[in-house]
């Protein structure tokens, strides 16, 4: 293995934030680059600051480096200033540990957490000196692998990736490594040649459960829709099932979280307390595809936090999950942690939760945790009216929100941030206007406690995602979303104390294009990339024209891929993949949504047979047989609805976008009312 450090070093004084290219993190594994080992380069296709904290990559990185037959480095997309110099100097993408060219690894494995990083994926492959099309690669090239939430519809990337992994990676990364070991080229040929026979390797990989090799399957079309996806080789599975780790207690990773030398997002200790979510919010792909709920034992959480703080010197820990306040005995656990932190004699330690439940219980926990700062507190009611919240199954009553906000302001917080989606199914202007009403009432509540109380309303357009009940819904057009934003701007303009921020509806459209497409999207993504469309989550690099032009140039209609309502009978581009959810469960939940029927959290109520537990022979692993204080998603609450209003899906209009809640990224516009 070679190192590009001597060539890279003189470039670093000429770029912004050079510290992101030097590695040297505490926790980094500098496993000796022995050619006898299978080598992985785990790569995040966005900047170091965004990618380093990614827990999925850190977990796999440790697991691989613990193996006797493999090693792993990490890599991140260079920012545009360094990329320009690298291309000028013919320097390839490199790993941060050994500054080894990425093309020298046996596998470059990407985490895909957001569709707008797809063009960066292509850019990284190209910078690595690897042909961007899977079909052009040879035994000399690394395998290009992808995992992460976006891979539940990998078809738009089918031309570019060799191997797709669905679900939890802890076990399957080892199985893939073992197959790669068997196919390595002879030591004499390495590292120039990586594998003895690439096709034989791919065939063996495709037989591993949860591994999908797109090149071994054929996709056919029927007009705008998919006709079928079939294996090209006999004996390959026709349905590829996601992998689920049954017990998180077996996987206490990362054991040594990476501590970067320069500031990154989520720059603190992160300990995952459970995986999966059963609240059943219908817009939320993460909640659907990660079922069932698997809690980490409380004692293990305490140990991981204590050891982590002592090792890293961080003074803050986040207990991560999709809804941490639902963790069994969460109060007891966090109280212990705070006391442990103080006992360590390192000054105040704060514990934070990534998302807050919208009720007084949630605020109570936040107050207990956040002894230090009392800046802003964030809630996500997601929709402006009770009708709409039933449709999306986010069963927060108005009084829950007001109690939570009242509790927050009364306990010293000065700012409350509220997240909403617009462009949800059957949304009316009344629902949109309801967002402004909620904000106004929250400010009024705040003023009782603090005259400078303010509420920030952050609005994102909804993008329907695969394996959710809303996967059939036609997304709002960018124009429709902009119209709704304008309604909110008008409504909030004169509301004192209300600040409105919104996500660019054009970025929402681009995400929609990439989210539910099929293989015909490949040339579109390639064209956007070739025309300079990298870092699409960064507003200074985003231009919707690149996307719409590429669609038109490839004979594709945005209408077909984004705005169109899908029908019950049609083949969806991800029907050959299995996230554990029965399609008829999702369809029924979609019908319930349109009928404004909410579903209670199934952890403490009867099973709805979504498929996630039964399919894997496991049940929700929870430490407590009773719901946490305050209830969860309808359990233990009176959810009498208002009058039933029949809902119809609007004819092909459209839709919304995702939640980009990363404050370090751009794409949000702000307006402060007078």
């Amino acid at each position, binding site marked *: 293995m070679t190192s590009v450090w001597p060539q890279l070093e003189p470039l670093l004084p000429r770029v912004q934030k*050079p510290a992101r290219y030097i*590695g040297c993190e505490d926790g980094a594994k500098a496993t000796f680059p022995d050619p006898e080992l299978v080598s992985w380069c785990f790569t995040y296709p966005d900047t170091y600051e965004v990618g380093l904290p990614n827990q999925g990559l850190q977990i796999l990185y440790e697991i691989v480096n613990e193996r006797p037959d493999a090693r792993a480095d990490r890599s991140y997309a260079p920012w545009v200033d360094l990329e320009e110099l690298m291309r000028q100097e013919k320097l390839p993408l490199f790993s941060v540990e050994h500054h080894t060219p990425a093309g020298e690894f046996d596998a470059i494995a990407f985490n895909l957490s957001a569709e707008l990083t797809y063009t960066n994926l292509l850019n990284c492959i190209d910078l690595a000196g690897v042909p961007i099309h899977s079909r052009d690669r040879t035994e000399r090239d690394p395998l290009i692998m992808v995992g992460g939430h976006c891979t539940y519809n990998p078809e738009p990337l089918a031309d570019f990736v060799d191997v797709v992994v669905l679900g939890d990676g802890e076990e399957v990364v080892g199985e893939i490594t073992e197959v790669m070991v068997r196919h390595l080229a002879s030591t004499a040929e390495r590292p120039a040649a990586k594998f003895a026979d690439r096709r034989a390797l791919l065939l063996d990989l495709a037989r591993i459960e949860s591994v999908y090799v797109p090149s071994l399957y054929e996709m056919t079309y029927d007009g705008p829709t998919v006709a079928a996806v079939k294996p090209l080789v006999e004996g390959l599975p026709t349905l590829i099932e996601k992998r689920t780790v049954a017990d998180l207690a077996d996987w206490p990773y990362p054991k040594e979280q990476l501590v970067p030398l320069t*500031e990154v997002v989520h720059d603190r200790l992160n300990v995952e307390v459970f995986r999966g979510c059963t609240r059943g919010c219908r817009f939320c792909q993460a909640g659907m595809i990660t079922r069932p709920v698997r809690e980490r034992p409380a004692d293990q959480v305490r140990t991981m936090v204590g050891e982590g703080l002592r090792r890293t010197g961080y003074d803050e820990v986040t207990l991560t999950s999709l809804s941490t306040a639902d963790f069994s005995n969460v109060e007891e656990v966090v109280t212990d942690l705070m006391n442990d932190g103080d006992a360590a004699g390192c000054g105040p330690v704060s514990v934070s939760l990534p998302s807050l439940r919208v009720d007084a219980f949630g605020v109570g926990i936040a107050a207990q945790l956040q002894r230090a*700062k009392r800046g802003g507190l964030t809630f996500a009611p997601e929709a402006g009216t009770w009708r709409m919240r039933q449709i999306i199954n986010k069963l927060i009553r108005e009084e829950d929100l007001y109690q939570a906000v009242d509790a927050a302001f009364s306990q010293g917080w000065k700012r409350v941030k509220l997240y909403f989606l617009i462009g949800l199914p059957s949304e009316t202007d009344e629902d949109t206007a309801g967002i402004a009403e909620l904000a106004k009432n929250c400010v009024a509540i705040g003023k009782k406690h603090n005259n400078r109380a303010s509420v920030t309303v952050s609005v994102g357009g909804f993008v329907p995602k695969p394996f959710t009940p809303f996967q059939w819904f036609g997304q709002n057009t960018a124009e429709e979303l902009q119209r709704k934003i304008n309604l909110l701007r008008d409504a909030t303009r004169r509301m004192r104390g209300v600040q409105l921020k919104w996500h660019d509806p054009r970025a929402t459209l681009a995400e929609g294009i990439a989210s539910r497409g099929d293989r015909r999207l490949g040339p579109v993504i390639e064209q956007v990339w070739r025309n300079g469309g990298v870092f699409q989550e960064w507003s200074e690099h985003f231009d919707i024209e690149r996307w719409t032009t590429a669609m038109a140039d490839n004979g594709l209609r945005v209408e077909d891929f984004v705005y169109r309502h899908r029908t019950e009978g049609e083949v969806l581009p991800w029907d050959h993949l299995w996230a554990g959810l029965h399609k008829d469960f999702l369809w029924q939940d979609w019908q319930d949504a349109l009928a404004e029927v909410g579903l209670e959290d199934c952890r403490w109520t009867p099973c709805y047979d979504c498929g996630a537990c039964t399919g894997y022979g496991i049940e929700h692993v929870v430490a407590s047989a009773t719901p946490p204080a305050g209830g969860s998603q309808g359990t233990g609450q009176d959810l009498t609805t208002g009058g039933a209003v029949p809902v119809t899906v609007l004819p092909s209009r459209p839709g919304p976008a995702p939640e980009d809640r990363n404050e370090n990224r751009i794409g949000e516009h702000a307006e402060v009312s007078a």
Partner: protein
Amino acid sequence: MSPPPRLRLRIRFTKAGKIRFVSHRDVARLFERAMRIVRLPMAYSEGFSPRPKLSFGLALSVGHESNAEYLDVEVTEMPDVESLAAALTDALPDGLTVEAVVVLEQGAVSLQQVITSCTWRIEVLGVPTDRVTAAVALALDAPELLLERVRKGKTAVADVRPAILALRVAGPTRGTPARETPTRDGLPPHGTELEVELSNESTSLRPSELIEVLGRLAAGPDSPEPDGGLIEGRVRRTHQWIEVDGIRSEPVSRPDASTRHELRRAS
């Protein structure tokens, strides 16, 4: 009633190798974490957002190395100062080495205010040593050296000659490996090392600005290449000085120069 005495420590450390690309602010964060790892009983500020009471001296530009960096930290009880330097070095990333820790006297003045000048070793690349030597001679002879700089959006011209307290050519260097890129005109990849003492008082001058000034002198008034082809190579601060009544001393002297580690190059 007089306030209780404050317990403060002054730490001397070096920064070398890859970590020279880490910013001053990030180094502060690295020290904060290292101090928690070694359980140093740091004093915290009051208020909603308590922070440890750390204060750093002069900033060091990203990319520059140093044999002589300092920081002060206030503690609530006196730790074992003898073992602290080694413990902190262990807790810090490679490239940051704590060389000495001393207890500050009551009322000691802050680092920012007390430093009068710094000595630097500056590598100049891109031109042969004789051109650098000539530019140095011109600089030393000049009655004034005007430098235009933009600060807070405004352009100001200052005479920076008084900031150059000492300047000499120390000799040729090996140069930076693979430095073909910045070298122009097919010149050999070696450089020239300058030793310079720059004032930190009313008139100040940064190493990068000195190279700009020398480049202009090397180029002559009407040159199409106003930087004279001079390129900044490795830059290392060797000393920070406190001068009182004509006597120069360091904030914390190095314990024993003969036993210190050689500064290792990156890679």
